[in-house]
Structures are given as C-alpha cells and as structure tokens.
C-alpha cells in the first residue's frame, strides 16, 4: 500500500541566484519592501486612477481644469493638508496614531494670531514660540504614550480636546483677523516660478521626510518599531525614545501647518482643526496602498493628498454640490484600503 520508497538521499534543494533572480533583486532594492505585496499593478493602481481622473477632467472641463491658475489654487489650497498629512505620518510609521494634529494646527494658528495681533510680538519670535509649543504638545503625547502607557488613540484624542479648549479660550469664539502680519500673508499667498511658495515649502519638507524615513537607519528603525515593537526591543533599539521623537516631529509639523494656514487664509477661528484631521490621517492610510504597499510611506502619502485634491477640484468644476467633497474623501479611503486588503489576501493564498 504505502511504499517505503528508496528516494535518493539528496541534498536540500539549492535554488541558486539566477539571472532572473538577480534582476528581481535589483528592482527590489530600488523600491524596497517585500515582494508579494509589491506587484507593479498594485503599487501603481492609485497613481493610475489619479492620471485617468486628471485626463477625464481635462477633457470634460478643458477650459477650466487644465490651467495654470486652477493648479495653483488646487495645490496651494491643499498645502496645509499636505503638511498635516506629513505630520501624522511619523507616528503611523512607528505604530501609533496621532489624532491631535488637527487641534494642534488650530491652536498654533490661533496662538500665532494672538501673539502677533494682540500682543504685537515680532513675527519671527511669535513663530518660534508657536513651533516650540507644537513640539511640546508632541512631547507630552509621546510621554503619555511611551512612559505612562496610555494607548496613542486615547492619549492624542484627550490631548486634542484639551488643545481645542485652549483655542476656544484664546479666541473667545471670535474670528481672529486683526493684526496678522502682512509678510506672513504675502509668503503664504505668493508664487515663485509660477508655483505657490507654500507648495514649494511642502515639497521640500516632503523630500526631507522621504530621505529621513526611507533612506536612513533612523527611518528603518522607526519602521521596525511599527511592524514589531517587541523585536525592535530585542534588537536593542530605544523604542520609547524613537516613538516619542515621532510625536515631537508630528507636533512640530502640525504647528508649521498651523502657521501656514493662518497666512494662507488670513484669519482663524476655533473649530477649524477637526476638518483637517480626517483628510490628513486618511492620506497616510491611502498612501499605504501605493508605492510601498502595506507600509506607510512618504511618496504614497503625497500622491494620496494630490489624488483627493484633484478629484474634489474636478467634481467642483463640474458643478457638483459641496457636500460631495467629504463623501468623495471617505469613499476613496474606504475603497482604496479595502481593495488593497482584498488583493493582499488573494496574494497570500496563491
């Protein structure tokens, strides 16, 4: 029945590196990540959607959509979202949520308006104080989470609520518009070489992030902490410090976004924070479905912000009412993350 066969007692099979293998290794090294989740069509599906959408809008709205002026508006008005999306990214990479970024942005804008408008402090010093406070909020978040052990979800939502209360106190429910320095408004609303200053700024910061998080040992360690915190500890990493650092960067970036928001809009009132939170955090998750699939990554996050911005702008030009925007935001997020899950599950099976 069952034959005790005399198989050749061979050596364990050696699948040596062949030419095709070598090529694959090289391409892997160019993009990073692990192979099953990085087939090209899954990596670039979001980019493809972006291009298709841009082409469609260019045809349907050929006089209004593909114009320099429109792109200046679309990119300019989304720079703050971009900055805040980048702000939420470091904690996501090292495995935490920062839901205080929106409130931090709001408080930073309010504080800067109060310092310059009511207390007549010089713009440079006021910005310095604002950024310092933003970073301090991040530090508090980090300490609550890594030293005391509160879940990042609860800690940052709690801290966020406190921040929103302080904003309300500072504004007393009014729109702050008096005495906001002209130089800040000029910077936030001007163009350089046909591109808004703040877009340049967001782009430069994105490049810095891309280098720091994807091309340095620091970035790789943050990633390892996000993927397997216990392994990271067994590798001798200073896990608590690195996680706290991520929150400090997040706080600082939120404050920068707040400063830019004040300059771009020219006024601020309490309550603007939450409207920035979802698009920012959502961009991080949407970004994780592209470029480096399954990982929070900088390029993906940038693409995600652009995708939503272009989509919303195109729809608005087509006369779609404004309630469509949040619906579009949410739907894109759920569909993209959902389909990447399904693809990953199918990849696991084969």
């Amino acid at each position, binding site marked *: *029945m*069952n*034959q*005790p*066969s005399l*198989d050749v*007692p*061979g*050596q*364990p*099979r*050696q*699948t*040596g*590196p062949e030419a095709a*293998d070598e090529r*694959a*290794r090289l391409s*892997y*090294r*160019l993009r*990073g*990540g*692990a*192979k*099953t*989740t990085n087939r090209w069509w899954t990596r670039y599906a979001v980019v493809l959607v972006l291009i298709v959408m841009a082409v469609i809008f260019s045809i349907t709205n050929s006089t209004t959509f593909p114009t320099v002026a429109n792109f200046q508006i679309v990119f300019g008005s989304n720079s703050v979202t971009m900055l805040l999306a980048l702000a939420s990214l470091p904690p996501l990479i090292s495995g935490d949520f920062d839901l205080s970024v929106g409130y931090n942005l709001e408080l930073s804008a309010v504080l800067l308006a109060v310092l310059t408008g009511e207390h007549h402090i010089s713009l440079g010093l006021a910005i310095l104080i604002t950024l310092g406070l933003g970073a301090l909020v991040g530090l508090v978040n980090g300490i609550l989470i890594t030293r005391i052990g509160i879940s990042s979800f609860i800690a940052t939502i709690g801290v966020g609520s406190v921040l929103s209360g302080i904003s309300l106190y500072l504004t007393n429910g009014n729109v702050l518009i008096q005495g906001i320095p002209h130089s800040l408004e000029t910077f936030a609303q001007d163009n350089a070489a046909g591109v808004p200053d703040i877009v340049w700024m967001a782009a430069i910061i994105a490049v810095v992030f891309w*280098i720091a998080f994807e*091309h*340095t*040992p620091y*970035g*790789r*360690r943050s*990633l*390892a902490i996000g*993927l*397997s915190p*216990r*392994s*990271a*500890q*067994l*590798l*001798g*990493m*200073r896990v608590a410090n690195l996680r706290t650092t991520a929150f400090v960067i997040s706080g600082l970036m939120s404050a920068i976004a707040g400063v830019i928001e004040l300059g771009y809009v020219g006024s601020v009132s309490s309550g603007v924070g939450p409207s920035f939170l979802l698009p920012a955090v959502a961009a991080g998750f949407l970004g994780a479905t592209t470029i480096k699939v*399954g*990982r929070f990554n900088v390029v993906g996050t940038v693409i995600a912000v652009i995708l939503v911005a272009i989509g919303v702008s195109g729809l608005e030009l087509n006369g779609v009412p404004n309630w469509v925007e949040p619906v579009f935001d949410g739907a894109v997020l759920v569909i993209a993350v959902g389909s990447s899950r399904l693809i990953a599950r199918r990849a696991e099976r*084969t």
Partner: protein
Amino acid sequence: MHVADVRPPALRIRGASMRFGPRLVLDALDLEVEQGQVHALLGANGSGKSTSVKIISGNHEPTSIERFELSGEQVPRPAGVQDMQARGLRTVHQELGLVEELSIAENIALGRHYQRGVGGRIDWRRTRAAVAEALELVGLHRAPGVPVARLAAWERVAVVFARAMYGGLDQVKLLVLDEITSALPAEEVARVMEVIGRVKNHGAGVLYITHRFEEVFEIADMITVLRDGKIIHHGETSEITPAELVELVAGQAIEPHAPREATRTESVVLSIDKITNSRLSGVSFAVGAGEIVGVIGRAGCGRSAIGRVIFGLESIRSGTVSVAGQGIPAGKPWRSLAAGIAYVGQDRRRAGTISGASTEENLTIGALSGLTRFGWLLRRREGELADTLITRCNVVPPDPRAPIETLSGGNQQKVVVGRWIPREPKVLVLDEPTEGVDVGARQAIYALIHEQAAHGCAVLVLSSSIEELTTLCDRVLCLVDGEVSDELSGGSLTVQAIESFLLLRVSSGNTSAQKAAS
C-alpha cells in the same frame, strides 16, 4: 453493517495532491490513522507536513484527492473548517488560543458552547459541571474557575485538549496535534505525553506532528515521513531506530557532533556577579573568549531571566554584569548592545523577526549604521550584506525579497541568529536557539554558533534540551531556584549527568518544593 472488530480508521486519505502555482507541494499522499493510535507525521520544513494538516483540517482544498474519510464516512468536498469540526476533527496548534484572563471553564466553553439556562443566560453551574467532566478525561485536576494565566504550560495544553473533548468524547474522531510541544521545556513535554496517552486510550485517532524525535519513540504507534511532498517512509515505530529516522527526515546522515576542542582562554569576556532580582538569587559565573557555556534547569529556575538581565531587558535588585571588565548599567538594552552583547530571544514568532519586512531587512536591521554614507542608507551595500549573510547562514529560499513570514521556522531562526554576525559581538546570548527547528536547520545554527566562538566571542546558551547542551557546550551550568548549583565540563558533561541533576538535585531541595507550592 460493520463487523464489530473491524473499526474503520479514524482518518483515511488516498491520493491527496496539492499544487501551488508550478510547485507540487504534496504528491499523492496516502495516510491512514487508526482509532486509538498515535500516528506521527514527520518531515523537514517544507516537506509538505503543514499542507497535509491544512488539507485535513479543511483550510486548504487539495488540487486532487481520491478518498477522504473520517471514521469511515466520506467527507464531502469542499470541506470547510467548520464542517470538519462538525465531523469530529479537532486540531491543536502550538498557539493554543487561550485567553489568559479568563478561567478554564470560560476558555473551554468559549470555543464550543455554554450550557444555557432560563432566558438563554449562561447556566454556570451546568457549564462548570460539563467542563469538569472534560478535565477529568484529560486528567487535569484543577478547578474550572482557575484563570488560565495561573496554569503551567502542560496544563494549558491539557485545557486545550479538554476543549477538544468538551461536549462528548464520542464526537471526537481525530485529533491533529501540530507541533504543540515545540515551545515547551523538556520537563513539561513529559506531562503532555501523559495527556496524549489518555486521549488515545479513549479511542480517538491522533495525528502527531513534531520535530522532537524522542517524543515520537515515546508515544507514536506508526510513523510516516514526508520529503518534498512524497511519502518516503511508512511503518510501525518499532521497525525503525532513532538514527535511521533522523537520516530519513534530514535527507542525509547527520554526523554526530564532533566534541569541541576546548578553546577556553584566560581572558574572561562576560562576567556575571551576584545578580539578584525576582527570579534570580545571586547568580555568578564568567564566560571566556571563545567559550560556549550552557545553562540548564527545570522550568521556573530562572534560565531565561539570566539572558534577559544580561541584555538589559529585565531589571535587577543587585549585582553586576560586565563585558571585558566594564560594568554595564542594567535595564538598558541599547547600552548592552553598545557593550558588544547580542541576544537571541526565545519567542521567535512573536518577538524575533520583524514581521511584514523582507528577509533582507531582517538580516540588516542590526547593522544599518555601518551601511551609510553621510547618513544615507546605501541600498547596494545593504543588498551585498544581505546576500553574504544569506549564503553564510544557508537561508532557504536564498531570496532577500521573501517576506520573513514565508520562511520556515528553522530559516527564520537562521536569520535571527545571522543578523548579529556583522556586528561581531563580544558576547552572544541565545535562549532556546533551536526550539521548533528541524534537524538540518539545527546543524546550520550550531555551525553559526561555533563560528562565532572561533572568532573569540563568548557564547551563552540557555536551553532545555540536554542533547543540545552536551553537543554544543564546553561547560554547562546547572541552575536551581535562580542560583548556579553545579557546573559540568569535560568528562563530566554527559547526558546522564545532566539528567540525574535534573531529577535528583531539583526534587530534593526544600526551597524548590516551597516555591512550587506557592
């Protein structure tokens, strides 16, 4: 009607094949497990064992299969996991799936069903009674209300068996035990073997998957060996010797390990001085350059704690750890790392590899600082390092892109050990380095350890495997209740010596009995 004494086998499989893409993982498998018998299914990592288990448990639908019967009844296809359960199949994995905070009764009833009272609420009295009955079957004498967190490892396994039996023994036709002992210390395995014996006596068939051959000879009635998806041996346990079996599974004769040349030198690298904390009471010893020192002791003796203290993962009350004469502050892994200590922890699945990362990223994570120019991580140098390490550690598949989870346990362990090589550690501490690892990979890991010692590294091996310690180590320290009670080396370092230490020295001590009681 069947004739009374011709009982159908608990499991009968004919011609089961499984193809993943171009790869034929399982080639016409025939397998029969009789009722009341333990049938061992053996094979190296990647031989098709796991695939067979997944087909039997209903997780995988085979590419083709001629017959698939449980207790004489044809299993309809495709058979899902629920379906197989309903037909009397119970699978137990190494991850037992118990909820620590809940009681034995809750853990058992959760997976199955609670006894219900008026209005559908849980009738705890009847649930407890049913649970107590199941516990009686597996011989675990514990109150159903005891939280699982308080149980010893073998007792947890017994709880999982009881969960499988809960609701009627006659419903259980086949019990599949998938490497349930691989994370257990040797002394607990014996208790698990007793429990399995009891289950088998109740008439269920048991399909037993393991890497530990001693267990096979202790408990199995039949043995089937797989290699590359084919059966290469099938027969009764009494027909084969351990050495023959090892050769069959490994695919080549494993040379008995050459006793190491004593490389002991005068220079002490690692020294531990009167370390005391909640689990250790004044441990002192030293490891010289190029020396491999083992530590053994019964469960709860503080073996793992030594490694965790040395790497700064556990705090201490008093004592010092020093490397090359330099004291190291306790409780700071990064300081230990900077002092030249490398540590390989016990729980590879949960705390060894970086899941979600590639083999390459796992191999280079410990040596990133050496791969940069002006802070920029050089992918090319990283790739070269990964290739070198893959070759040196013989990682299979030799593919840097492979997600680490897709590697077999043995190969993951090669990666976890190999990633320390580029750091050239002065001290290497390994906790159960070959737990759940097949014979071939074990040899590869031993070779890596020897290589490190040859380079002057002081190696400390914490293990519950007597065989591992006698083949690998120059000296073995015997630990009782957080204290070094004995040291074996040279001619006195034998399997018998360690065994008698474990049996006699430990059970006679009064302190250990008191601790066990508390």
